[in-house]
């Protein structure tokens, strides 16, 4: 199956700064793809090249199985990080206008806008001017305008920033529904918890380079389960075990980091001999930890 998006070693530099360097990635239909990275790492620059707002200096962009072509953009929905709506326009007019621009006729655009407003619970605002609405509401409207033409590829730059938890969940669920309907979804974020929950594949970029990419399981499996959470009662001399690199003991609740390639099982055996163990959990590193480990401690995320 052809990839919906395929970037092949694209590079882009501005006057002094290299924004993106030799970035390659593939997004399949029916998957959710997370583009991660600290601020200023090149996420937005990469996305802009995917939607033809800027052109790569070198490398190629393929959309929907074809080399980049403006026609393909009619099947792409793009939500930029910087939100932009016509402030003076009524919500419904704005949605219909966006739909028409993407090739829908007025009737279809109106029906779809109505359905989407209903689904995202903003129907009561549809007759108001955009400038009268809250930031969160505006964001939902922009979210809808991205999806009006039922695009096969949905690209969202920081879609959840500035939303309250209820609305963020509403949009997340919507994206999952779209994914299950076979759409390819790419979103960029620096919120690791969302990525961990939602994404099938990720690409982590730092200073314009892809430092980590692949399927979520696969990426995670590359990192050792080197952390242990342990709850016990009794003596704690097992904490001197050679496998332990460092630990924090909170009176019966211990967080342990193991030395590389250490044997966790032998630690469990020793602990069981010396104390009563209520819980022994070998935890896989969170994406956040992987992120910090990979990019370094100086992350502005």
């Amino acid at each position, binding site marked *: 199956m052809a990839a919906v998006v395929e970037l092949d070693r694209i590079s882009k530099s501005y006057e002094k700064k290299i924004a993106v360097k030799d970035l390659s990635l593939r997004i399949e239909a029916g998957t959710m793809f997370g583009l991660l990275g600290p601020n200023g790492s090149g996420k937005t620059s990469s996305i802009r090249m995917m939607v033809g707002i800027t052109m790569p200096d070198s490398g190629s962009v393929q959309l929907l199985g074809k080399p980049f072509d403006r026609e393909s953009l009619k099947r792409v929905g793009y939500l930029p990080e910087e939100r*932009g709506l016509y402030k003076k326009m009524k919500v419904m007019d704005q949605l219909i*206008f966006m739909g028409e621009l993407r090739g829908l006729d007025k009737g279809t655009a109106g029906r779809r806008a109505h359905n989407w407003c209903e689904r995202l619970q903003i129907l009561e605002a549809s007759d108001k001017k955009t400038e009268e609405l809250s930031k969160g509401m505006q964001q939902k409207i922009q979210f809808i305008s991205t999806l009006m033409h039922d695009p096969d590829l949905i690209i969202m730059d920081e879609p959840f920033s500035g939303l309250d938890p209820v609305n963020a969940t509403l949009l997340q669920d919507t994206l999952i529904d779209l994914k299950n309907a076979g759409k390819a979804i790419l979103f960029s974020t620096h919120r690791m918890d969302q990525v961990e929950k939602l994404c099938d594949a990720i690409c982590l970029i730092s200073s314009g380079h892809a430092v980590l990419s692949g399927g979520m399981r696969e990426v995670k499996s590359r990192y050792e389960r080197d952390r242990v959470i342990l709850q016990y009662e009794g003596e704690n001399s097992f904490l001197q075990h050679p496998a332990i690199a460092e630990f924090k003991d909170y009176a019966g609740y211990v967080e342990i980091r193991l030395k590389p390639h250490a044997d966790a099982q032998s630690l469990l055996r020793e602990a069981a001999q010396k104390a009563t163990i209520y819980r022994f959990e070998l935890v896989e590193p969170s994406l956040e930890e992987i992120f910090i480990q990979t990019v370094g401690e100086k992350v502005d995320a």
Partner: protein
Amino acid sequence: MRDILLIAKREYLEQVKGKAFKVTTILIPVIFAAIIGISIFASRNSGSGKHIVVASNDAPLAARVQEKLLTDKNAHLTVDVLAPAADSDRRQLIAKIDQKQIDGFLWLTTDANAGNAKATYVARSSGDFATESRLSDAVDHAIVQQRLSSHGIAAGDIDALTKGVKIETEQVKNGKEVGSSTLGSFFAAYIMAFLLTFTVMMYGMNVGRSVIQEKTSRIFEVMLSTVKPTDMLAGKLVGIGAVGLTQLAIWAAAALLFSSTALAASLMSGGLKIQISPAEIGLFAVYFLLGYALYSTLFAGLAATCESEQELQQYAPLAAVPVWLSFSMITFIVSNPNSFWSVAISLFPPCAPIAMFLRIASQFPPLWQIALSLALLLISVWIVVWFSSRIYRIGILMYGKRATLPEMLKWLRYS
């Protein structure tokens, strides 16, 4: 093409429904009427309400001058007579002027039979042309009457003999004489040129503002992922241009309606006949469209390179120089429509819409000149559109970072 129309329609509806459109549609004619009213009122009343003294060694002559001055109702002069006057009186009068008791005095000396009269007007202010011309008129009149009287002609005959003739002006249009007043055609030109300046500038700036608003609200980023930048710009120009035409049409219709009312009839009876032909209206529309196209694309290109509306506004006066240049030449062009400078400025594209229009209003220029000015205007519109649309494409995306030349060239190739 569909995209251009959609964008134009959106822009048009937003602006026509907007408050600014309603306010300017009503306010501009009101301001115009006020400006014209004030200038007419001021010109009628200039040099009026003054207190002057007519001093002469010839008392009957002085009385005639006084009588003549007082017949001019608009002047509201207070005229005292001091006759016969001696040199010591002159010093006293100068002292009175100094103490601001009077505004000035006319020193009139004659020898016998009112021959060889000599008149001097001494006043606090110089350059009071209106009073000077009134005085000169009155003195001439009085002396003629005095001389006629000394030849033994009866008082009634003197009035009949010296009755003035008011000059009426007619203009030759299409080989026919058309009754017109110079004031009327001047006002027609003045109003239309002012209107043209105003609308071209207003709507040109409007396009610039609209571009910068899309740039600062980042909406273009959504738009550019669907629409070509040139389509975006074209749609904007068409939409806002249509708003301008709508406003002009509303004003034209209102003017037509107004001219059929009684109030207009009473104003027109005052000798102020304003002649506007259909050809002038057609050319007005053409010059508006071309002038608008030139200035709006200029402003659009300029706006794309700016970061904020404030920054754009700093450039605006610079771009408006040609408009004000042609505007400042209004009086010159209207009184010398065929002089070298009038022709030159009416062919120079940035000034052409306004300058040529002034010439059309005062005297229809040779057709080849109109054709040439339109052709030159079209060519320069084309050039400005070419540059502006390219600057627009690149500039609109560049916030914070400046585009390099190779990047611009790349952009030219891609879109």
